[in-house]
């Protein structure tokens, strides 16, 4: 049990997928302009990443490895994630409109989110077992959502600040992300 806890803390704080592993930066800068959008995106990523992490792990372990097709991993994973995201989107739109209203519009964005694909690949590269893969996928996504929401809070505040004209937009976003990353480095000593 404590192993999983350690893994969770590590994935959320120390090796934060956005700030330490540089995965999923495009939406991080794109979707963090408003708090509610960031929250929606964070939730959608938690949902899809957990699902995708588990399903790609099953496919890898029970299909690709036994059939000796490991070299197809990249292409199979991306296809599975794309199909999965599309399916979830269609499914939610009809069956759970309330949830779709909150997450729906963020789903297509996730197909090309390298965080999802990256975590799926890390799961199998590190040779996690099923539980580890589940916990790692979920907590990585939580780390992503946490960083995204924090960033949105900062950027909402920054909207009223006087920023030098040459730094406006993405530049100040990157510098802010840098300072957030620095803060997260402080968790390094925890484990």
């Amino acid at each position, binding site marked *: 049990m404590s192993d999983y806890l350690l893994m969770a803390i590590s994935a959320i704080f120390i090796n934060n997928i956005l700030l330490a592993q540089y995965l999923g930066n495009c939406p991080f800068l794109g979707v963090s302009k408003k708090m509610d959008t960031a929250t929606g995106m964070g939730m959608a990523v938690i949902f899809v990443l957990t699902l995708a992490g588990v399903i790609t792990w099953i496919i890898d372990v029970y299909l690709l490895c036994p059939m000796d097709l490991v070299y197809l991993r990249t292409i199979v994973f991306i296809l599975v994630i794309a199909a999965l995201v599309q399916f979830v989107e269609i499914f939610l739109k009809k069956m759970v409109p309330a949830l779709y209203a909150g997450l729906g519009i963020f789903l297509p964005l996730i197909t090309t989110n*390298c965080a999802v694909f*990256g975590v799926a690949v890390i799961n199998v590269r590190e040779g996690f077992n099923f539980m580890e893969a589940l916990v790692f996928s979920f907590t990585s996504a939580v780390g992503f959502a946490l960083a995204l929401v924090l960033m949105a809070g900062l950027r909402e505040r920054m909207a009223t600040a006087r920023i030098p004209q040459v730094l406006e937009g993405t530049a100040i976003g990157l510098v802010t992300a840098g300072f957030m990353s620095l803060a997260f480095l402080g968790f390094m000593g925890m484990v």
Partner: protein
Amino acid sequence: MGLVREFTKGLWDEIPPFRLVLGLCPTLAVTKTLKDGLGMGLAVIFVLLCSNVLISILRNIIPPKVRIACYIVVIATFVVIVELVMQAFTYELYQDLGIFIPLIVVNCIVLGRAEAFASKNGVLASAADGLGIGVGFTLSLTVLGSIREALGCGTLSLKIPFTDISHVYNLFGPSFKPFAFMVSAPGAFICLGMLLCLMNIIGNLKKS
């Protein structure tokens, strides 16, 4: 003339990731050193060039409804090829870049060019566009890699992939204390942010 224009726009006017703010993840992750940045850049050039050419050839066959899925399959195929080639011939680089090689699949630059350019233009123009954007991306990566390595380690390590030519230049002599911040994650963000700022300043100067 047209082809030259398609090629050169990737070098300044639309240079990623500065002008087109796409493909940030590899930009941040693999620019710890000059050689990593260069290797990544070459891999992206290959994938971008091949996928642009193939998609441009197939552009009239692919049904529009499933075009994104088709593009992803094409890109993924070339990424697998790059992955296998690098594993075979430049194992050290393959180890350094790690997960970011398969991640080229989800690099928005590749998919973005496929949709925005290759699906609407001829083969030669698409090839020029892919090459131009790829070279531009590589340039950005090498510049960023050089700055971070120079400040972070005090060295510049050059290695041409697929050859034995490699050299590590020591820039500042033995008394230099490496600025380790630059090779860590926060350094990557701040360094890229500052470069963007520099680009804006240059842009402003050009305008006035």
